[in-house]
Every structure is written in structure tokens, then in C-alpha cells.
């Protein structure tokens, strides 16, 4: 027993070093769980505060580009205005039983909230974007984020009271459902962690025609993104001979180098959709296992 104590005393620095290493590695490899439980609350408020101050200065230098982008976006919205169209009277009267919703007004599916980027990176293989709007501003996990010009940017993965953290499309764990604009064939957009200008579109069968320059948009099957938001354009077609699928290089539509204003989009029916999918799984698959 005495020898044990002597040993500990003699190698105390080494043991302390190993303990600290262990703690650091534990943080590193259980990052998400730990961070969610303990780290984010306090630390995100502090880093968020300094990041917000930095962004206030940095924003000034990009005002011009941002202004042009907002102007383009406004322009495209003006084109959608009711007044920009003529409606010939086609005299079809539809009668819908409206017990719950006014069928003319429609009910809201997506809710948009604006937010500003306070921190952003493109240099890592796991890039995150920090927004100055958090749980008190209505942000929740899994909301979609699009840039001020309507291009897909990422998905909210973590929130603190006043800030939220977005997993950028430039993140190796990121997977977004995407489809081709013309044909509507869908695949998955990922990032290989190399060049921040290009994403990879997979799972698109070779049976369809694909051309350079084709537009890739968010698909209608995504729980987070509303359909039709621009992800990018196809820059290179790599035929993967071992499978029946294309591997397509997609040039990102969003310029991740100077993001500033974004919209956070909430799918108001997401919970219901996810719940239904899970319930279906339970209902169909589990009774079969029991048999």
C-alpha cells in the first residue's frame, strides 16, 4: 500500500497530465452530447457576445454586396406580387367544406424569421455558423437556414437563449435532401470536406439525363427545408462505375465567405411529419418482428 502512495507521489505530474489528456479527449469524442448538456449554455453566451461585437465591425465592410443581394431578392419577390399577374375569369367555382381552415387563405406551413450571422467559418471540415437569435427568439433545433438571396445555407443544430449554432452545408456530417429542378429526381447533398466552393450530390440514378449547369434545389421530401430553395448548379459529372449512381460536383449557390443576413425557416408541421414517420415504422415493422 505504501508503495502505491509513493508511486502516485513520484509520478503525480505525469498522472495529472494523463488525466487532463483524458478529459480533453473525452470532450473531443463525446462532443455533441457533452456540449448540449453542459458546455453550450454559458460558453455560447460568452463567445456569442464577443462574436456579435466583431460581426458589427465586419458587417460594415460587406454592406455593398449585401445590399445588392437584398435588392435582387426584393426584385424577385416583387415579381411574385399579386398585382404583377392578370387573372382571366375562368369561372370555376370550387366549394370546399371549411370546418377547420379557410380554404382560400390556406394555413401556414413555413414561418420565416430573420437573423444575422455573428460567426462563420469555411476553413474547417466541420463548419458552423452562429446566429444572433436563439431560443428566446423562437429558434429551435432542425430549422432550415437560407441566405438573403434565397440559397440554402444549413440547419440549426443547437440553441442557447440568445444565439444559435447552424451546421453549415460545408460540414462533413451534413446531409440535405436535394432534387434536380427540371426532372425532380432527388438525391442527397453532402460535403467531402475539401473545397468550400463545391458540394457533392449522390444517389442520383444514371438512368436520368444530367447536364452541366443543371440547377439543384432543396427537395419536397426534406423535413426542414421548404422545397425549391437553390442549393447550387452542377459543375462536374463523375460517373461512378461501381454503382448505378452519379457522383455530381455541385457549385454552391450561397457564398459562404460573406454570409451576413439569413432567414431561419420553421416547418410548422415538422413534428407531426416526423411523428407520423416514426409511428408508421412502429406500426408496420414491429408487429412483424414479433411474429
Amino acid at each position, binding site marked *: 500500500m505504501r508503495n502505491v502512495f509513493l508511486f502516485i507521489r513520484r509520478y503525480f505530474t505525469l498522472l495529472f497530465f494523463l488525466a487532463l*489528456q483524458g478529459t480533453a479527449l473525452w470532450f473531443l469524442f463525446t462532443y455533441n452530447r457533452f456540449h448540449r448538456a453542459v*458546455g453550450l449554455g454559458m460558453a455560447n453566451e460568452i463567445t456569442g457576445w464577443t462574436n456579435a461585437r466583431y460581426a458589427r465591425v465586419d458587417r460594415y465592410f460587406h454592406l455593398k454586396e449585401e445590399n445588392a443581394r437584398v435588392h435582387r431578392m426584393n426584385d424577385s419577390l416583387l415579381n411574385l406580387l399579386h398585382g404583377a399577374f392578370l387573372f382571366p375569369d375562368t369561372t370555376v367555382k370550387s366549394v370546399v367544406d371549411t370546418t377547420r381552415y379557410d380554404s382560400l387563405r390556406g394555413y401556414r406551413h413555413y414561418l420565416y424569421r430573420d437573423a444575422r450571422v455573428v460567426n462563420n467559418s469555411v476553413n474547417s471540415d466541420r463548419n458552423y455558423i452562429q446566429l444572433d437569435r436563439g431560443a428566446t427568439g423562437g429558434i429551435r433545433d432542425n430549422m432550415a437556414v437560407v441566405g438573403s438571396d434565397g440559397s440554402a445555407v444549413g440547419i440549426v443544430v443547437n440553441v442557447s437563449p440568445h444565439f444559435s449554432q447552424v451546421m453549415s452545408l460545408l460540414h*462533413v456530417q451534413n446531409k440535405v435532401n436535394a432534387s434536380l429542378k427540371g426532372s425532380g429526381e432527388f438525391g442527397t447533398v453532402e460535403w467531402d470536406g475539401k473545397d468550400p466552393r463545391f458540394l457533392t450530390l449522390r444517389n442520383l440514378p444514371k438512368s436520368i439525363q444530367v447536364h452541366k449547369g443543371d440547377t439543384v434545389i432543396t427537395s419536397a421530401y426534406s423535413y426542414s427545408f421548404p422545397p425549391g430553395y437553390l442549393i447550387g448548379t452542377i459543375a462536374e459529372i463523375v460517373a461512378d462505375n461501381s454503382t448505378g449512381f452519379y457522383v455530381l460536383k455541385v457549385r454552391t449557390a450561397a457564398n459562404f465567405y460573406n454570409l451576413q443576413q439569413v432567414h431561419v425557416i420553421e416547418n410548422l408541421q415538422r413534428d407531426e411529419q416526423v411523428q407520423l414517420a416514426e409511428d408508421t415504422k412502429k406500426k408496420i415493422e414491429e408487429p412483424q418482428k414479433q411474429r
Partner: protein
Amino acid sequence: MSDLVRNIVRFLAFLLVQVYVLNKVPHLHRFITPSLYFLFILWLPFSVNRMGLLLVGFFTGLSLDYFSMTMGLHAAACTLIAYLRPFVISVLTPKDSAEFNYREPSPRAMGWTPYLVYVLILTVFHHTYLLFLEWLQFGSLLEFLVRIVSMTGVSLLLVITVELLFPRKLKFRTNTA
């Protein structure tokens, strides 16, 4: 300024420069992130004991991790160099001169060549360990090796620049102090 105040100011300066300047400037290449913050650990006074070094190293790394959303990555690398620092210093300097006359490692205290060797060894350890941890999760071997060499080169250049731009006026330690 006392040693404590001086080092707190230094810590904040290094952290802010690393997070808001070096991590933000357009990089030479996407593999090369210029990194300088670990110089804070190399500049700590000789008088800090080994346990203190380890703790300071751990928390320096952790603070950077909070900004870069890589929990534990830099903390692990910083703890490693904080642990190795006393060994490297004792190998490079004769016991009777520098450690007793000067407060902290600097080109003036140790001489340019031993000082640069000291910086080089710890930089290589820091980057190798850091990139190794990144590589474990994601990456290829060639990329890993190229990154170690290039990032060490860039860091060394930065350290030399800092030493030339901000020569630390270290008082010769005397009995009265």
C-alpha cells in the same frame, strides 16, 4: 506590471488575435490555418510549476475550443506541450544561466538558436498531435503529413515575426526584485 497581470493581458491578446485575425484572414491554402496562440504557453515564466503549466495549458486550449466549436481538440494539444515544456527547456539551457537570470523564455534569455529550437520542437509536437486528432476522425495520410510541415513552417514564421516586432524588455532578475 506584475507577472500575473502581464500574462492575463497576453492570454486575452493571443486568444483574440487567433480567433478574430488568424482564423478569419483568407488562408494561403485551405489546409493551412496559421496558428500562434500556443506561443502564450511557451512564454509563461520559468517560475510556474509543472502542475500550474498543465492547468494553464488545458484552459488555454479549452478557451480556443469554445470559439472554434472543437471541444477538447486544442485543449489536448496544449496540455501536451505544457507537459513537455520543462523537459525541452532543461535540455536546451544550462542550469546555471538563463533560468536563474531571466523570468521567461525569450531569444534574449536563451539565445536565438536554442530559443528557436525550443519553439520548433514544441510547435511540431503541438501541430502533430492536433492534426493527428483531426485525422483520426477525417482525412488522408498524405494530407496529414503535408499539413504538419506547412503549418509548422507558417507558425515558425509568425513566431519569429512576433519576436522581432515585440521584443520583450525583460529585466535581469536580481536579488532585490
